[in-house]
């Protein structure tokens, strides 16, 4: 059982489309991170959000932390084939425990 549920589980879109991935939990997190993982590799950190309501932008990616620090979203504008991968959210509870979500596998079709 994983504390963080991501939706959708799978997403296949055309190049240029926009998309949003959601990360939800009933638990409160001290911070939340988003990673992207490609086949045969470990996850790579994209962003860390700490404050409830915080919004961070990374080029075409916009990350938001929910006001209650229980949920987060990742919005990608004008998706490109290079955005293809497994997107993982991860929430921190306590000092040392990081809990990953179930993952969203994104495929961007050229």
């Amino acid at each position, binding site marked *: 059982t994983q504390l963080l549920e991501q939706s959708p589980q799978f997403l296949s879109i055309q190049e240029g489309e926009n998309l949003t991935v959601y990360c939800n939990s009933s638990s409160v997190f001290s911070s939340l991170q988003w990673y992207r993982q490609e086949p045969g590799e470990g996850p790579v950190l994209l962003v860390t959000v700490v404050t409830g309501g915080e919004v961070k932008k990374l080029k075409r990616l916009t990350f938001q932390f929910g006001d209650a620090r229980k949920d987060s979203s990742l919005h990608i504008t004008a998706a490109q084939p290079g955005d293809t991968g497994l997107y*993982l959210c991860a929430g921190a509870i306590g000092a040392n*425990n990081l809990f990953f979500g179930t993952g969203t596998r994104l495929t961007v079709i050229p």
Partner: protein
Amino acid sequence: DAGVTQSPTHLIKTRGQQVTLRCSPISGHKSVSWYQQVLGQGPQFIFQYYEKEERGRGNFPDRFSARQFPNYSSELNVNALLLGDSALYLCASSLIAGATDTQYFGPGTRLTVL
């Protein structure tokens, strides 16, 4: 600079056997964490070590153990392997202990239990 390295890359074992996985952190990083990623799921936290001491433990049975050496490298041991232990085992290093410190992941060791 070299990233996090893990060995072996792939491993096949049979039920009941024991396995040892190895991880070398990024130079200067003192903390190592281990995660299990079953196919189709996100990674699950197993252990975190900092300065050779266990700083965190996930919800895994006692068959799983780990240690960190003076050079900050780490080993993960799994005894009495079960079919359900088949997974990608990821190691991550960070400068300090703590879930919010940026963790850098290695490519993982793919363990198959037959």
